[in-house]
C-alpha cells in the first residue's frame, strides 16, 4: 500500500520545491539531480544540487526536456560513492536508466528515484515561445488543456506517463490547483515521506477517471501512429523515402538514452570507406550516395536497441531533417519487444532478452 502526502503552495513548482529542498536540508540525501532553469535560459536542464539554497530554479514538472536525462543520471550514479543521491526523473528517463543499470552503466545503490507523473514535454522552441509569452509555463500547462496539445508527437502516444519503479511519485492529475501529490512506491519511499513530514493525504477520487481518460486518448493515438508508420516503412523503398534527407549527423544516436556504446561502430574504420572502395562501389552500382550507409545506420541501431527503446522521442526532436525517427523506432520496437515479451524499464531484475537463452535445448532444427 502506498502512503500519500500532499503539498500545497503558491504554485506547483513552489510545492515541489518545498518538498525537494527538505530532502537536502533535513539531510535525508546528500544531493539531488533535478531539472532546473539556469539564470541564462528558461529551458530546464538536469542539475545536481548539494545545497538546498541553490535549488531556487528547479522546475521538474516543466513541459520541456532538452534531452532524456537518463544519461546524466547514469553519469552521477556510475559508481556507488557512499553518498545518497535522489534522482528526479520523468517516466521515460527512469525506464532508460533501468536499462542502463542492466547494461552495467550505473548502479541504483544508495539512489532514491523520484518519478514525476509526466503529461508530456514540448519541443524546445515551442516551450521557449510559451515561456516568453507567459512566465510560469509549468502552472499554465498543468491547468490549461489546450497547452497540453502542444506536446511532442511521441509524448502524445505515450501510455507510460506514470513512473514505474520510483521510490516516490509526484503527481498532479486530479489534484486541486497548486498542490502536488506525493505517493510512495517502495519502502524507502515510504520512510522518506514520513521523515519529510509532509501532510498526509488521500488519493483524490477523480484521479482514476482523469488518468483513464488520458490513457485511452494516448492508446488510440499510438495505435494510429503505429498503423500509419508500419504502412510507410513496409518496403525498403518506402523506408528510403522516409530517410531520404538523413545527413548521417548521428544526432539521434547521441540523443538516444539506451544507445550506450562508448565507441560507436559507425565512427570506426568499418564505416569510413577508402576512396578506392567508394569508386569500386560506384562503378558496380552506377552511383553511390554520400555519406554512405544511411540505411545501414538506422537499421543497425534498430537491431541493436529496439528491445530497449523506451519511446522518449528524443531522436525525432533532435533530427535536423525532421525525419520521424521516433515513429519508426517505436513502431519497430513494439514488434521486437512483443517477440521477446520484454518491456524495457519494467523491472530492474528482468534480464535483457539477448542474455536469456536455454542452455539445455533439444537438438534438431532451430525453429
Amino acid at each position, binding site marked *: 500500500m502506498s502512503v500519500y502526502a500532499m503539498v500545497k503552495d503558491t504554485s506547483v513548482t513552489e510545492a515541489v520545491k518545498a518538498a525537494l529542498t527538505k530532502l537536502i536540508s533535513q539531510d535525508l540525501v546528500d544531493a539531488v539531480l533535478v531539472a532546473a532553469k539556469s539564470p541564462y535560459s528558461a529551458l530546464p536542464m538536469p542539475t545536481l544540487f548539494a545545497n538546498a539554497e541553490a535549488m531556487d530554479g528547479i522546475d521538474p514538472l516543466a513541459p520541456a526536456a532538452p534531452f532524456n536525462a537518463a544519461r546524466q543520471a547514469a553519469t552521477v550514479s556510475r559508481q556507488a560513492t557512499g553518498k545518497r543521491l535522489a534522482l528526479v526523473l520523468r517516466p521515460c528517463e527512469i525506464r532508460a536508466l533501468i536499462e542502463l543499470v542492466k547494461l552495467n552503466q550505473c548502479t541504483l545503490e544508495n539512489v532514491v528515484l523520484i518519478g514525476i507523473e509526466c503529461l508530456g514535454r514540448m519541443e524546445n522552441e515551442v516551450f521557449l515561445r510559451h515561456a516568453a509569452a507567459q512566465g510560469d509555463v509549468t502552472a499554465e500547462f498543468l491547468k490549461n488543456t489546450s497547452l497540453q496539445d502542444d506536446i511532442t508527437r511521441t509524448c502524445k502516444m505515450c501510455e507510460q506517463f506514470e513512473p514505474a519503479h520510483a521510490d516516490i511519485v509526484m503527481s498532479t492529475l486530479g489534484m486541486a490547483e497548486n498542490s502536488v501529490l506525493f505517493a510512495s512506491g517502495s519502502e524507502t519511499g515510504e520512510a522518506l515521506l514520513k521523515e519529510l513530514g509532509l501532510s498526509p493525504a488521500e488519493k483524490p477520487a477523480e484521479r482514476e477517471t482523469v488518468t483513464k481518460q488520458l490513457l485511452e486518448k494516448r492508446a488510440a493515438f499510438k495505435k494510429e501512429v503505429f498503423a500509419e508508420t508500419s504502412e510507410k516503412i*513496409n518496403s525498403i523503398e518506402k523506408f528510403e523515402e522516409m530517410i531520404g534527407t538523413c545527413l548521417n549527423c548521428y544526432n539521434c544516436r547521441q540523443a538516444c538514452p539506451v544507445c550506450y556504446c562508448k565507441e560507436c561502430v559507425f565512427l570506426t574504420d568499418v564505416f569510413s570507406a577508402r576512396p578506392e572502395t567508394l569508386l569500386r562501389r560506384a562503378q558496380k552500382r552506377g552511383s553511390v550516395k554520400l555519406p554512405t550507409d544511411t540505411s545501414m545506420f538506422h537499421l543497425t541501431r534498430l537491431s541493436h536497441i529496439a528491445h530497449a527503446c523506451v519511446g522518449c522521442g528524443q531522436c525525432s526532436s533532435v533530427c535536423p531533417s525532421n525525419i520521424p525517427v521516433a515513429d519508426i523506432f517505436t*513502431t519497430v520496437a513494439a514488434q521486437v519487444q512483443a517477440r521477446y515479451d520484454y518491456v524495457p524499464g519494467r523491472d530492474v531484475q528482468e534480464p535483457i532478452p539477448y542474455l536469456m537463452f536455454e542452455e539445455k535445448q533439444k537438438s534438431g532444427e532451430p525453429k
Partner: protein
Amino acid sequence: MVKSMSDFQPKIIALVCNWCTYTAADLAGTSRLSYPANIRMIRMMCTGMIDPKYILKAFLDGADGVFIGGCHPGDCHYINGNLKFKKRMAGMEAIIKQFGFDENRLRLRWIGASEGPEFQHNMTDFIQTIQDMGPSPAQGIMVL
C-alpha cells in the same frame, strides 16, 4: 531491371561457424556432394559473433537470402554462442519483415561437422526456397 523468374540466380550469403558448418561444407566438398553455386560462404569463428549488422549489410547490398549455420545445441565450441545467436534471430526476423523482406529469406540451421550430406541438403533446399521467392526487394533500387 528484374530478370524473369526462370533465369533468376539467387545470391545467398552464408555465415557459417568454423567448427561445424564450415567443416561440414568441407566434408561435402571432399565427398564430392554438389549443390548449386549460389552460396557465398563467410566463415565465422562462431554464430555467437554474428552482429545483426552483418545480416543487414547483406540484405541492403542485394543478397536474396542469408543462411546461418551453427553447431547443434550443446556442441558449441564456445559453450553457448549458437544459442545466443538463436535468441537474436527473433528480433532480426521482426525487423526485416517490417521493412518488406520475407522473414524466410533469413534461415538458421544447426549443421554438425560430420553432416556433409545435411549441408548439401540444406543448401539445395534454401536455394530452392529463395528461387521460388524471387529477387530481394532491395534489388534494383538505390539503397541509401
